[in-house]
């Protein structure tokens, strides 16, 4: 008989994915009606999360009341646009193409980022490609420090640890990407009297894997309560194209291909989901060690990293704080 204190991946299985779809669709429709908006806008990336939200919105409002905004830029992967269109076509959603490269150029996104890279890689320049990476949390208990990995035009790889200043400047500059996209989503939402739908899953939302006032901004977040593994289950129930379901999750933020584990999470999403589930349910590291194929000490480090990211995410989740004795707008009676 299975030990009830030992978790396997079945802990993440939704009892009835089709029923979950219907419940979200109903709540999404009621929420957007409550805002007096007539439909939904979302940015399509060709990834699993935005495709599932698009499919849910198409069911909630009818596909003609959903707009998918395609917002590639010069560093986007070659697949992004094609898979975004595949997602929209699968659910009959109209799209609009907004190449954000000129916006990012005008605001100095690339120049500011490259200036920051040059603080640790002085030769970085035209024709180079780069990404920032974190060491694995499971291999050592060392503090995780960001490095830049770059490839020069001759194909040689260079690596350097980022200073605090360079790291902050790289992140601040690349955050223009998520914030420019959100600006355009709200432009189309205002134009059409639609609401903006956010696409984070629970792992991303809980752990602060979003840009404040960038991809973190939205009027409604239909899948932020679902572990990523559960988003994949919804994808199956909704008929998301297989090519999108099989795509490796990516940040699609830097010119070099970058997995989400390299940049943020400790483990691939399914193992990360199970660790987060255990933390959410107050279960000890030993309960998931076998399933995530780590020893207990390694899982302890993953749990500690989850806690550390939650502390950083508090600021990202915080609404503007109104000081003084403001207690809200006057009521109709007041």
């Amino acid at each position: 008989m299975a030990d009830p204190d030992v978790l396997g991946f079945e802990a993440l299985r939704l009892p009835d994915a089709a029923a979950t779809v219907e419940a979200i669709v109903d709540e999404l429709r009621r929420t957007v009606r409550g805002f007096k908006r007539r439909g939904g806008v979302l940015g399509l990336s060709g990834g699993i999360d935005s495709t599932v939200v698009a499919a849910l919105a198409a069911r909630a409002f009818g596909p003609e009341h959903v707009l998918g905004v395609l917002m590639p830029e010069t560093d986007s992967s070659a697949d992004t646009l094609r898979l975004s269109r595949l997602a929209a076509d699968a659910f009959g959603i109209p799209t609009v193409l907004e190449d954000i490269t000129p916006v990012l150029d005008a605001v100095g996104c690339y120049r500011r980022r490259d200036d920051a890279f040059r603080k640790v890689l002085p030769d970085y320049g035209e024709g180079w490609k780069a990404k920032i990476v974190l060491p694995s949390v499971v291999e050592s208990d060392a503090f995780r420090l960001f490095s830049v990995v770059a490839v020069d035009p001759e194909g040689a790889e260079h690596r350097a640890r980022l200073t605090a200043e360079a790291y902050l400047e790289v992140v601040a500059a690349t955050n223009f990407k998520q914030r420019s996209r959100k600006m355009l989503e709200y432009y189309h939402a205002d134009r059409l009297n639609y609401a903006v739908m956010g696409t984070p899953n629970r792992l991303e939302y809980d752990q602060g894997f979003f840009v404040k006032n960038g991809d973190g901004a939205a009027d409604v977040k239909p899948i932020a309560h679902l572990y990523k593994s559960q988003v994949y289950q919804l994808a199956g129930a909704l008929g998301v194209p297989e090519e999108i379901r099989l795509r490796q999750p990516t940040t699609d933020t830097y010119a070099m291909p970058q997995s989400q584990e390299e940049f943020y999470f400790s483990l691939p999403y399914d193992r990360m989901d199970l660790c987060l589930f255990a933390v959410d349910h107050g279960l000890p590291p030993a309960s998931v060690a076998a399933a995530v194929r780590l020893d207990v000490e390694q899982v302890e480090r993953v749990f500690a990293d989850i806690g550390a990211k939650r502390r950083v995410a508090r600021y990202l989740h915080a609404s503007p704080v109104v000081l003084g004795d403001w207690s809200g707008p006057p009521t109709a009676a007041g």
Partner: protein
Amino acid sequence: MGDVESDVREFISENFILDGQVLAVDASLTSHGVLDSMGVLELIMFIEQRFSLKVPDEDTLPENLDSVERIVRYVEQRLGGPDG
């Protein structure tokens, strides 16, 4: 060299908000919420600039950086002893 401990204490109190908290020399800076991932980068930069040291990746361990006492011990070891 000067007093490593007073330099480290001054850096921590000037750069991280302690809300009047006085930390014991052996108190964990991460457990007390003083040092986060950004703070570690800033601390390393401080050590490298103030003491003219290079802190290699393999030294960025809690046992070297996660309390005032540990930072002082690490810096003094790297400088060749308490008297520098």
